[in-house]
């Protein structure tokens, strides 16, 4: 699991969008039309930032200190409340379901739980369905239909080092494979911890 605080691989500097340098961008606008536009801008900023840094999840409290939400040059930062509102919006269908709160405990979280707990969320710069398609496409491209692949092989193997899903969080991978299974394109078997998958 890659923590948001890691931001360990600054292979090249992330190019922030122009709006990132606009001070009011860090205040959530109350007027509906403006707010919607602002949320969209934030959403795409977060997605591209996470894609750049290969982040699969964000922990809000920690992420607030990262350049994503904290523009040190302007000395403007997004407040925790506003950041939550943005992620909330990203989880809705209107926000294209680009995020999902991760429940801390096994039970279904109520809304208040989400706020009180760690506030950790998936950032889907690709949604599980999209990942599923990407995996299928990769299997198809590399001619591995019918072969059994381990999950470790997919996320950590040398063969996939150039693929986007390299280093993917295992939970997310499981989710994506589940989509493939549902589509009837793959089959997952094996015991917990050493699962394998077969595409066909």
């Amino acid at each position: 699991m890659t923590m948001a605080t890691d931001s360990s691989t600054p292979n090249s500097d992330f190019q922030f969008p122009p709006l990132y340098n606009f001070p009011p961008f860090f205040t959530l606008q109350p007027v509906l039309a403006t707010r919607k536009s602002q949320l969209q801008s934030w959403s795409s900023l977060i997605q591209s930032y996470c894609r750049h840094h290969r982040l699969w999840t964000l922990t809000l409290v920690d992420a607030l200190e990262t350049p994503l939400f904290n523009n040190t040059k302007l000395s403007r930062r997004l407040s925790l409340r506003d950041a939550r509102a943005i992620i909330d919006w990203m989880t809705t269908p209107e926000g294209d379901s680009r995020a999902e709160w991760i429940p801390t405990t096994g039970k279904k979280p109520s809304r208040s739980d989400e706020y009180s707990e760690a506030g950790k969320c998936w950032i889907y710069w690709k949604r599980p369905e999209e990942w599923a398609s990407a995996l299928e496409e990769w299997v198809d491209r590399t001619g591995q239909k019918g072969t059994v692949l381990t999950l470790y092989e997919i996320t950590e193997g040398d063969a996939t080092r150039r693929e986007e899903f390299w280093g993917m969080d295992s939970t997310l991978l499981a989710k994506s494979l589940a989509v493939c299974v549902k589509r009837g394109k793959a089959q997952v078997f094996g015991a917990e911890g050493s699962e394998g998958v077969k595409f066909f």
Partner: protein
Amino acid sequence: MFLNPLDLTTALRPSLLPDETLLFVQDAVGLYEGKLKIPKYQNGQAYLTSHRVCYVDQTEPRSCSVAINLKEVERPEFYAGFLKSSPKITLYPKASKQLSIATNPSPTAQGTLASATDGHVAPATISPVNATWVCPICSFSNPVPSNFDPTAANARTPLPPCLACGIKPPLAHVIKAAIAAIRQAQSSDGTPQYTAGAPASSTPGTVPCPRCTFQNHPSLSACEICGAPLPAAADKRLEAAKAITRAESPGPFSQTSPLGHEITESIKLSFRCGGEKIFYERLKNALVQRKWLLQSAPPIPKPLPASDHVNMSAGLSAATIQASGASGLSKAIGIAGLERRHLEQTKNNEAVIGTAFSDLEALMTSAKEVIALAEQFANQANIGNNGNHNREAANAASALSLITTKDMLGTGSGASDLYISELSRNLAEYLTDDTRGILRNEGGIMTLVDLWAVFNRARGGVELVSPSDFEKAARRWDELRLPVRLRRFRSGLLVVQGRDRTDEKTVASVLAWLRELHSENQGQGQDREVSWDQRTWGRGVTVQEVAERFGWSVGVAQEELEMCEEKGAVCREVGLQGLRWWENWIVKDPVVHSG
């Protein structure tokens, strides 16, 4: 001319002459000329002032409004209404000069007949006089009654019996005779020289009888032989009248514009929503008081002789009297002169006040002067106190002439509604009055509460307007198409502003200012580091800056900015430095490149 064009104020009320006061207002009034409705003048407000009766149309106030000067009104007549016919007040014009005398004599029947002829008034006027019917029993030639109208006659029309045998003729018989006579008159009209030329061609100075052709003496009014009425006598007067009237009114009822032609009969005001009784009462009073005479009359005895009198009675020295008696401006030189003039002025004032308050009658006659004095005192008091801060209050007297009070309006069902609409117009006038410049002083916008306070103060403490009436009146500006409007901000604050100041204009002016800031001198804010690219984003402004820049109060500026935000023109930034407002780049540049 009986109907005069009328000047309207910005609020579409009649603009009053100096000294003219408004007495009564009633809406839903229609105008009649004689018996006929005047088209386009059928639904409007009737204003009764001390000098005039004004009609202002509801839908076309600018083009369809007229005034009748009360001094030209002979008498009013009241008709109480019956079943579906509305109550009416008829105003008869004064018979002025020979003109109206000539055209007046038989007003009822000719209108319809004359319109059928080729525009000549005279033949139609005489023809019924000439007509005779022959009694079927005794064959006596009876004259057709002068007011008999063959087109309007029916079974109930009273017919006079035969002069010889006393038997009433059948109706058809009389109608036939009348029509025959008219036709005869028309054909004789084809030879235009008939009446005018006859005396010249035949024996000079005689008039041929139209029936038996006997040459009568010109001074006779009826034929010596057969008794038929002679046209000449009536004709001569009519000839003179024709020469004048035809020039300006070819058809007696050309109904194009009531202003254009002579009103020969009367003007009726039809009161479709009541109010006629009070209107009539006040109209009668106004006609009795004849305030318009005051305008031209010499002013009420001037204080100068009176002051002499007072001086004497006060036992001042003879020298002072002489001085004041012979006082010219040339004599008043230097401080001594000024002092003396001041003294005289004081004496005058004393005299005016003394006589004015001696009894009620006197007070009423010298009301104008007393008001002027009071105003002057108020001004002096103000100079002593706080300059022109109380200018509105000092204008009380002039505002008084404008006011609409509940007292002026009828008690009918629509009275309160009318009161509101009149108040609304009144307010609009008050606001747009350039001499006061109420709105201008407030940067073109002021809260309704402020306006209410100022307005009531200007009313001088009488007939104060209740807040609810005031709000209702303000809400009707839009409906009445007045040049001011009421605006409600999101917070519920109600403000008043000119109609030309729309939200779009405000937004544009704010944006223009924000754009200016892009190129603003960077060194201006030395105290704080500008960490963003000001060339691109401009600068955030505070509410205070905006208020200062546009001359608004801070509350209004806040509301205006929120309105701009609502429209998506600006956005806010809440930071350590408080709330700042920026040009809205969030909406304009929403595409952030992905990847």
